């Protein structure tokens, strides 16, 4: 029997790691992630989790420990935020290119400069090019569930997975979380089977310099390809991974009664306008939907859960079916010099499939500035008014920022 606990997001993640039987943990403190790895150290020291807990001296070393331990055959985990994730950036590319099923919890926090410990999603969004799968959680139950799912997804695809959740809003807020009993988890998540390990009985060298061209200078060497072939496989696996991600989620739902999908829609069936968001802000947006509906607006909310690989075709097909003419995308991070990444990528998906919709982009809560449902409502009404006045295009706007 699992247990019904009241946990903050950090602790929910830690419990999930314990139940997923993580074997090597690399720990480095950073606000607001620190309580996550602190609880893991207690699990390890009290014998609740049989694992090696390495207190590293930097985040770069944290992800390196995971890369090395995963290459040696262990199930690994680390967690970080903001500048810690940025420091790992080189190794995020490495882990994906090396096809290692590492799971990383990113407790979303704003990046420096200047220093800011509060929540936005700039850290993980800015890592979208690295080849990691990215999942955004809305509440602490989802954090627990997704980390378990993440190992199954990662170890099937041999692609690392980043489970993201908002700092403070989720990491430090208590919510009911139902854990799953160990036997059931073991049945759902079998032990890690590496595709290659460092083994003196079967020596090989990993991640050696790889030529741009295909070597011809030894018998049978041409069929092994070169750098582009290996990188091509990463991309192809990512693009075809939606099935696996959905299937794992479905299986989880069948076994444990909770599933999430690649996105969750709320009141979208007859909506003229759809709010779109990632993470905990989606919960806030459902309240905005309820209040706007009371005022007579036909509005819905789409919570995007999978950011990478970007479900372009899936979202385009959705937009094609759904009656809504307008998508109002509210984001917690952006690609500086352009606009919110989710907005850009959604528009590109629509364009590719020749689907015409209005897409408006808002930034909210950048640097953790507190926001409430009324600000979301105001922004939504602004967009609706603009469209009613024939202004289908609207420049990206920062909500509640002195201009």
């Amino acid at each position, binding site marked *: 029997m699992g247990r019904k606990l009241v946990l903050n997001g950090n602790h929910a993640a830690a419990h999930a790691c314990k139940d997923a039987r993580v*074997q*090597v943990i*690399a720990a480095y403190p950073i606000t607001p992630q620190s309580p996550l790895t602190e609880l893991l150290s207690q699990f390890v020291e009290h014998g609740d989790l*049989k*694992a*090696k807990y*390495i*207190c*590293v*001296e*930097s985040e*770069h*070393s*944290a992800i*390196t*420990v*995971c*890369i*090395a*331990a*995963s*290459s*040696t*055959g*262990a199930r*690994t985990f680390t967690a970080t935020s903001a500048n810690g994730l940025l420091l790992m950036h*080189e*190794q995020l590319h*490495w882990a994906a290119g090396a096809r290692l099923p590492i799971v990383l919890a990113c407790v979303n926090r704003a990046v420096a400069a200047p220093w800011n410990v509060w929540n936005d999603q700039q850290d993980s969004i800015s890592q979208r090019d690295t080849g990691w799968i990215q999942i955004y959680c809305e509440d602490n139950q989802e954090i627990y569930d997704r980390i378990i799912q993440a190992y199954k997804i990662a170890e099937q695809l041999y692609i690392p997975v980043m489970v993201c959740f908002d700092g403070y809003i989720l990491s430090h807020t208590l919510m009911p979380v139902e854990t799953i009993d160990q036997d059931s988890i073991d049945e759902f998540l079998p032990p890690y089977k590496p595709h290659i390990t*460092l*083994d*003196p009985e*079967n*020596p*090989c*060298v*990993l*991640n*050696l*310099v*790889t*030529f741009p061209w295909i*070597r011809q200078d*030894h018998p049978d*060497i041409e069929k*092994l390809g*070169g*750098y582009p072939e*290996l990188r091509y496989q990463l991309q192809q696996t990512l693009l075809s991974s939606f099935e696996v991600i959905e299937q794992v989620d479905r299986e989880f739902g069948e076994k444990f009664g909770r599933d999430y999908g690649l996105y969750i829609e709320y009141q979208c069936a007859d909506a003229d306008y759809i709010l779109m968001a990632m993470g905990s802000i989606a919960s806030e947006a459902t309240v905005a939907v309820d209040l706007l509906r009371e005022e007579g607006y036909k509005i819905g909310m789409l919570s995007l859960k999978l950011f990478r690989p970007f479900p372009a075709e899936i979202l385009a097909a959705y937009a094609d079916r759904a009656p809504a003419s307008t998508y109002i995308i509210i984001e917690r991070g952006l690609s500086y010099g352009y606009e919110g990444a989710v907005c850009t990528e959604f528009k590109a998906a629509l364009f590719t499939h020749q689907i015409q919709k209005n897409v408006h982009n808002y930034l909210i809560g950048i640097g953790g500035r507190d926001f409430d449902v009324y600000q979301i409502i105001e922004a939504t009404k602004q967009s609706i008014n603009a469209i009613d006045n024939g202004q289908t295009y609207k420049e990206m706007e920062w909500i509640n920022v002195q201009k």
Partner: protein
Amino acid sequence: MEKNLLPKDLPKEEFLLPGTRACSGCAFALAYRFALKALGKRTIACTPASCSTVLSGMYPVTSLKIPMLNTAFESTGAALSGIRAALDILGKEDITVLGWAGDGGTVDIGIQSLSGAAERGTDMIYVCYDNEAYMNTGVQRSGSTPYGAFTTTTPTGKLQKRKNMPAILAAHGVPYVATANSSYPIDLYLKFKKAKDEFKGKTRYIHIIAPCPPGWGFHTKDFIKIGRLATQSGLWPLYEIIEGKMILSKPTRDIVLGKKKRVPVTDYFQAQSRFRTLSDVQIQQIQAEVDQEFESFKQNL
């Protein structure tokens, strides 16, 4: 370190296959050869960006007969910690975890992760093979380049003294620290054997001088001679620091005892074109420092 081992007594098995991409006359290739003879088959190596990466080969084939993990430049110490953690949790015993890094990847960019791994007492043998510059990228200066040496980024001679890595590691409380020299392969072999057999489970650090013909400016045939001159002149003393106590190795001890003459540093400098910018005053300065260091070695007898 006093065993009278002869070449015929050393293990025959080679762990580097012939036809590597190392330069002709590469000293660290020789060091690697004897390090692996001492450590044997049950070794997992880890190498950052370095000449050793090139020696190891190019996908999809390698010259190494042991498993090796390539890792990002600054991360060798952390990678070694990760390998060891996984081996421990998986119950895989009796495997040596070997870091094989150049001076850039140890003394400069790699020092943080090495320091962390050493502080954690990681069960590993970390080796810095020191060709005294970033040779793989074309002879740029590193924190281990000696005072006065030409490099492509110090064309008039490096102005700063090098870091003393063995002392830094000894200050971490690493129980076995040693310097070695590919020109003394049997001494090197015995040190690796000692590291493997007598300091099991602990952090061990071995720093090897690796003369580099293209980088230092001498003919390939002299790479053994140059390495020997480094020790004979006292610029590369051979010693171990065991639990904080320095024990001189025979080639250096013989000099301190007066059994062998210490060669003037000029002989070492004149044999390599990288020291051509050293002035007489600088050479005298360096000679005086070596003289002083060897005075202080008398207390380690």
